[in-house]
């Protein structure tokens, strides 16, 4: 078994990798009136978890299996139709890379940074980071599944003034589904790059494009 403590360090929302400035689409959903309360947050997170969450978790798991990061980065591009979200994924990948190299220095991370100086897709960097931290593919998938819902939950607390206990209770209710998604993602990644899932959420893609053009917003995405 891998080190649980290493997983906690990497999965912690305080890990300084830029996520705090992003809402995972929650800001647009709040503005459109689709997320108004804890129940709305739960539906939003569930949808995100089973779509982009699954896809990203599998990419991260594949990177942690040591599959070719360039092929994985291309696979991530192919699974991200929104140019705004592609830019966000690379920016967050670059920010995570900086934190990861300072935290768990490794030749593999240095090589990926050299290959993508402007940033590889965040899940690819995350899987590579997991390896550097002595974690495995499942750990990487769990980490992505958790951050897929943790980011929007924190953002909605700020956007709506939602009771933070209610927001955390939403995360707790989603725990069995996070486990499932992480296991499915890791299982798919075990079968190689062609078996990676391509689940997506078209509404998140559309609203991400609109959100990127707002002149006034609290979150970068």
């Amino acid at each position, binding site marked *: 078994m891998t080190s649980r403590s290493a997983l906690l360090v990497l999965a912690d929302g*305080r890990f*300084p*990798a*830029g*996520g*705090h*400035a*992003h*809402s995972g689409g929650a800001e647009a959903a709040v503005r459109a009136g689709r997320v108004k309360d804890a129940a709305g947050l739960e539906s939003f997170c569930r949808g995100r978890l089973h779509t982009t969450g699954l896809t990203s978790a599998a990419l991260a798991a594949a990177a942690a299996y040591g599959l070719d990061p360039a092929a994985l980065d291309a696979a991530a591009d192919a699974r991200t139709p929104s140019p705004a979200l592609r830019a966000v994924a690379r*920016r967050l990948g*670059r*920010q*995570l*890379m*900086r*934190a990861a*190299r*300072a935290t768990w220095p490794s030749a593999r991370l*240095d090589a990926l*940074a*050299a290959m993508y*100086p402007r940033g590889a897709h965040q899940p690819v960097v995350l899987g590579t980071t997991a390896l550097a931290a002595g974690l495995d593919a499942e750990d990487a998938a769990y980490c992505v599944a958790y951050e897929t819902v943790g980011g929007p939950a924190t*953002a909605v607390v*700020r*956007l709506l003034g939602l009771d933070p206990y209610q927001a955390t209770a939403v995360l707790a209710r989603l725990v069995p589904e996070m486990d499932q998604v992480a296991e499915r993602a890791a299982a798919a990644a075990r079968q190689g790059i062609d078996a990676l899932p391509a689940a997506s959420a078209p509404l998140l893609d559309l609203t991400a494009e609109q959100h990127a053009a707002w*002149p*006034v*917003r*609290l*979150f*970068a995405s």
Partner: protein
Amino acid sequence: MHLDHGHTSHGAISADARRPDGTRRALRIGLGGPVGSGKTATVAALCRVLRDTLSLAVVTNDIYTREDAEFLLRNAVLPPERIQAVETGACPHTAIRDDISANLEAVEDLEDTVGPLDLILVESGGDNLTATFSKGLVDAQIFVIDVAGGDDIPRKGGPGVTTADLLVINKTDLAPHVGSDLARMARDAGEQRGELPVAFTSLRAEDGIAPVADWVRAQLGAWTA
């Protein structure tokens, strides 16, 4: 400022004094302080007096707009490619202290695209009295308060007032109108800060930025020495 670690790999991590190609990077100075105290006005005035002799760039951290960056652009204090705005996710002090990655990206991009640079000014979004910059992001920091925010702010202290490398008490031209006692502010600031310097400014006055500009030049002298 002995921050050399001799990194040879791709991309600096944070406070390394040298860029990956071995050249010395720009001095980075942070400007923080409460909303409306005059941070952007200070940045603009510094750019106007320093831009002829130094290669400059600015990073802004607005809370939910691009207003600071747009003000600097509109007033043409620097060419647009030398001004970068960072989005802070509703939490400006997180972006300058707890998770500095987006700001480090911005300073690196500026050095890559318009460098070499002598000086990068990083303005924080207006925040409260506890907001300070990480040493991984800036080499020195200026905390800007104003006389109109109440003459008891220096007495209240807090990390910005107490520990900033330079405390600027701005808008002294307004002191008679708002009944602020400048002598008291100076005394209280001295008690909180010990030997650390304090500058009183009015950016409405001719060359009102001079004390801050002199301090910045001294920092640059030490950085390049």
